[in-house]
């Protein structure tokens, strides 16, 4: 399995913490008897640990039932709170669908374009932020599909100058690389860093105004709260991933460089996409001309390799990846790898050895030989 983006295998330490917390933290953290208080303590401990990793205060960390819910909640609550200013949400063209859809739902989406590696133009972003009626800006820390890092520091300077809060989606970054402090709201995904599925994180700096546009609940920002054992396991996984990030990144970077080099050299008519240097260490994407993405993913699966794809024919939607489309690169025949921790060089080499003939077979089946 070479595609762990947004759904990494659970780290062993997180699994142990989860099992322990099933015994210790099963109760409802809203209850006032001792078991409930113990669950509350574990939940707050999880928030404290995450706050420590991102450089925030415990009370600034809210836990959501998913990364999507964290992003939706962030966009909706900030737009609601700033409705007197306006309802424009400035977004990068390659943000996650959850951000783009929440922007449409809560206000008016204003898209800032990207270049051919998928990086937002900071000058265009600066212009967009200076316009009238902007409630929120949203920019990912890095693109999880192609790996390109975004200019979040410049974006934060611009947003500060304009007095607009900046939401940084670190859903593909946190636990892998340092996400810095150039944000007013930070969203992240526990399942991406090796925690359990079902925990999203939203960190909101003090002073950023939010108002729910949903019903009242004891858990004001994410009604109904989250599973305490899952929250604890997510926090443990983040501490482990964060502590070993430099070593993991170095290993991933070596493997990804190898993939980029060998794919470009050994597969004819291929485009390796995304920035080749300023990037996430573990993500690599390429598109093969005249290749059906679904057949390619199927062929690689049959050969024992699990990969992702942004091609239209691999999803139920007819639309190809909006990320690849915005970059102006080939959308068909797309393969995405997000290497899980511990991927061995031998696994990557076996994949690279198998790839050219799988691609050639798909091309032959489509009658695209020699084009």
């Amino acid at each position, binding site marked *: 399995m070479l595609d762990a983006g947004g759904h990494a295998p659970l780290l062993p330490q997180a699994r142990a913490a989860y099992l322990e917390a099933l015994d210790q933290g099963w109760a409802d953290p809203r209850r006032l008897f001792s078991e409930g208080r113990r669950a509350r303590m574990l939940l707050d401990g999880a928030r404290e640990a995450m706050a420590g990793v991102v450089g925030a205060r415990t009370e600034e960390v809210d836990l959501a039932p998913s990364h999507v819910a964290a992003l939706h909640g962030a966009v909706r609550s900030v737009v609601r709170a700033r409705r007197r200013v306006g309802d424009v949400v400035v977004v990068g063209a390659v943000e996650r669908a959850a951000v783009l859809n929440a922007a449409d739902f809560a206000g008016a989406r204003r898209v800032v374009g990207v270049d051919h590696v998928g990086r937002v133009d900071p000058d265009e972003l600066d212009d967009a932020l200076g316009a009238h009626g902007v409630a929120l800006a949203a920019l990912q820390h890095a693109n999880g599909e192609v790996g390109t890092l975004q200019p979040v520091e410049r974006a934060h300077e611009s947003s500060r100058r304009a007095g607009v809060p900046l939401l940084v989606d670190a859903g593909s970054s946190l636990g892998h690389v340092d996400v810095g402090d150039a944000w007013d709201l930070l969203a992240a995904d526990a399942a991406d860093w090796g925690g359990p599925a079902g925990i999203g994180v939203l960190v909101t700096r003090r002073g950023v105004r939010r108002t729910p546009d949903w019903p009242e609940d004891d858990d004001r920002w994410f009604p109904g709260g989250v599973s305490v054992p899952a929250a604890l396991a997510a926090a443990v996984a983040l501490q482990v991933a964060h502590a070993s990030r430099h070593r993991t990144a170095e290993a991933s970077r070596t493997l990804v460089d190898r993939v980029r080099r060998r794919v470009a050299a050994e597969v004819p008519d291929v485009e390796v996409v995304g920035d080749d240097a300023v990037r996430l260490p573990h993500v690599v994407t390429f598109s093969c001309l005249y290749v059906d993405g679904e057949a390619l993913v199927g062929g690689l699966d049959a050969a024992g390799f699990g990969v992702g794809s942004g091609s*239209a024919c691999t999803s139920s939607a*007819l639309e190809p990846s909006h990320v690849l489309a915005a970059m102006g690169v080939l959308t068909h025949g797309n393969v995405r790898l997000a290497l899980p921790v511990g991927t061995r060089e031998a696994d990557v080499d076996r994949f690279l050895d198998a790839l050219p003939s799988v691609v050639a077979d798909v091309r032959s089946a489509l009658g695209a030989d020699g*084009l």
Partner: protein
Amino acid sequence: MTDLVVDATGLRCPAPVIRLARAAREARPGTTITVLATDPAAEHDVPAWARMRGHALVSVEKDDDRLTLVVRTAG
């Protein structure tokens, strides 16, 4: 002005690009080829193909779900 028309209406990716590439292989340099397509991926993949192959993209038009793309072969 068009020399050739490739009708890829109703075909899914990557078939429109493959049809276009076949036509381009047979065509003389400087031939103008018009591609008709309904697959949304063609809007991005025909220009990307032209860039990878060194052909010129002349125009892209979109009318509801119908795409009309014009390329001119290299040479």
